[in-house]
């Protein structure tokens, strides 16, 4: 693998098209995210945000276009391919196993086995998993609850943190992983939203590239470095979050403001 220079995007999609029959869900989309950058993907319902996210996570195969991860061309046939390339998706439903405790949820799929004969029999080392989970959560600056607490006894904000942390732990093993977040604050109250925003920022500071799909404009301004706005399957705006005019952004989202790329799409 070539060592990615700072100028190489962690994830770059070019010319992505997605057709469902005659419906064009995505029309010639270019989007990239740099290591340590938070890109907010905005758009009204049906604008194609979720479809684009699914293309990035490998759940959908685009009709046209190329996907580059850290400069290397990839073709995702399944979400596991994307995971192998260092891309983790945090679903809106969080995908946590509620009756199991935090440590198990964080380690699901990469459980640590005991050493020696018990390990050969498949016995897990719960203590080691608890220790490493605590260490990882400390590193992310989040301490939710004892690692032995079942997820069903956590509050919504704590669950969101566990789900984010699980993905963060998984991409941290890779050099400069990529996180895709689907509406991370949709079900949270004010204070919990603040906590999650802080966590997203810290993950980015550790070099993780993050794409956030959201309806929550204040969240974008809090955490995002760049805003990418979709409207009816087309990219209509791509601009730095700092200084972006709120009315303009809303205009792009609703479609009342013409695309930044009006010339390109007209031709």
């Amino acid at each position, binding site marked *: 693998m070539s060592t990615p220079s700072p100028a190489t995007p962690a994830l770059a999609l070019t010319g992505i098209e997605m057709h469902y029959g005659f419906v064009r869900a995505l029309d010639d989309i270019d989007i990239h995210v740099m290591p340590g950058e938070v890109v907010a993907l905005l758009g009204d319902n049906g604008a194609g945000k979720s479809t684009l996210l699914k293309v990035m996570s490998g759940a959908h195969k685009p009709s046209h276009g190329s996907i580059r991860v850290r400069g290397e061309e990839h073709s995702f046939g399944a*979400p*596991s391919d994307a*995971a192998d390339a260092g891309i983790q*998706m945090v*679903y809106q439903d*969080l*995908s*946590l*196993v*509620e*009756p*199991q*405790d935090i440590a*198990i949820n964080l380690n*699901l*799929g990469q*459980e640590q*086995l005991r050493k020696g004969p018990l390990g050969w*029999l*498949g*016995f*897990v080392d*719960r203590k080691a998993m608890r220790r490493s989970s*605590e260490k990882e*959560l*400390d590193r*992310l*600056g*989040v*301490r*939710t*609850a*004892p*690692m*032995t*607490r*079942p997820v069903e*006894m956590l*509050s919504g*904000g*704590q669950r*969101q*943190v566990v789900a984010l942390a699980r993905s963060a732990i998984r991409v941290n093993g890779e050099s400069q992983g990529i996180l895709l977040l689907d509406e991370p604050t949709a079900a949270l*109250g004010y*204070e*919990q939203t603040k*906590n999650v925003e*802080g*966590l997203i920022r*810290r993950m980015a500071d550790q070099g993780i590239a993050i794409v956030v799909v959201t309806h929550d404009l204040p969240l974008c301004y809090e955490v995002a470095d760049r805003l990418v706005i979709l409207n009816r399957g087309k990219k209509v705006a791509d601009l730095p979050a700092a200084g972006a005019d709120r009315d303009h952004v809303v205009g792009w989202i609703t479609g009342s403001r013409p695309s930044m790329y009006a010339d390109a799409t007209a031709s």
Partner: protein
Amino acid sequence: MTNSVSNSGATVAGADSPGPAPAPANGAPGATGQDMPRSVSVLVFMRDRGIFVLWGLLIVAFAFWCSPYFFKVDNAILVANAAALTALFAAGVGIGIMTGVLDLSLPGTAAVASCVCGWLLTHGHATWLGLAAGLGAGVLVGIVNGLITIRGFNPIIVTIGTLSVLSGLAAVIAGGYTFPGLTQLEFMGTHRYLAVGDSFSGIPAPVFIVAAVFVIGTIFLTRTRDGIRLMAVGGNAEAVRRAGIHADRYKVLGFVISGLLAALGGLVSTANVTEANPNASPAIIFTALTAVALAGVALTGGRGSLPRVLVGALILATISNGLTIRGIQPYWATVCTGALLLGSLLFERVLQTAVSERLMAANLSVHQKKV
């Protein structure tokens, strides 16, 4: 070893005492890191361990009411033996439900297993071969059930279908009759072990089998990677799949375990009467389900523990034993069990609501403190 049995209860109960180190105050106070109120721990303990308390109360009540016959070692062995078969099938149904499937084909699997074993034994094959073939039949049924179900069919309908197929197959193997006189199997049926002279007549073989099944099963489900994943698949199969695990394989594994236990149950009941009977009695599954439901294993999957299932089966046997000693008609035992089951549902609902309310209150109070 505070949390040796249940996956949820013990960990929660134990979560309070060691607690976390105080949250790192590096300017980033994650999500609210408060600890659980004591009252919630007590309620959760009652929810997860209540059935053990209930059984203890039943034993005390019967010990006085049916004195002096009930509270004796001999009677305890009777109860254990009576509970053994129910417990085996309940383990099968229970593990199925924890994995997220309701396997209704158990009686058919049991009948086929005992008929396969009976056929081999009456045709002069070795005992071990008969038993192995019977258990193998159970595994095979589990694989078939699993492979059909993961194609996206409803497990209840699929297993009703296989139940019908299997009970027919069992009758075909038996040629419409039964296989009587299987005395070779007595060692795992009515035979008693560990007898001490005249004072103690020994413990019947099925009790040992049940003990082994529950110990191994509990360790498997709470201590091993595959067991934990199995429970996780029952809790949220999609989450497990997204974690990069072949969730479907674990679904099939759940069916295989439940088929294996059903076959074992069929073989033990065959050994008890030294006769292989092709009649698949649906009553088995309902008794087993009663024990499982009494144990508070949620039908939604992912929750529950085998020790509780065992106690559920024991409670059924205890009630029927105590009432029999008092000379009360056996029909009343069923009435009692049913009433107990409904009562436990109500109890669980009340506890669950109390837990959620208290948790909500705890989260809210923390919220207010910070603002």
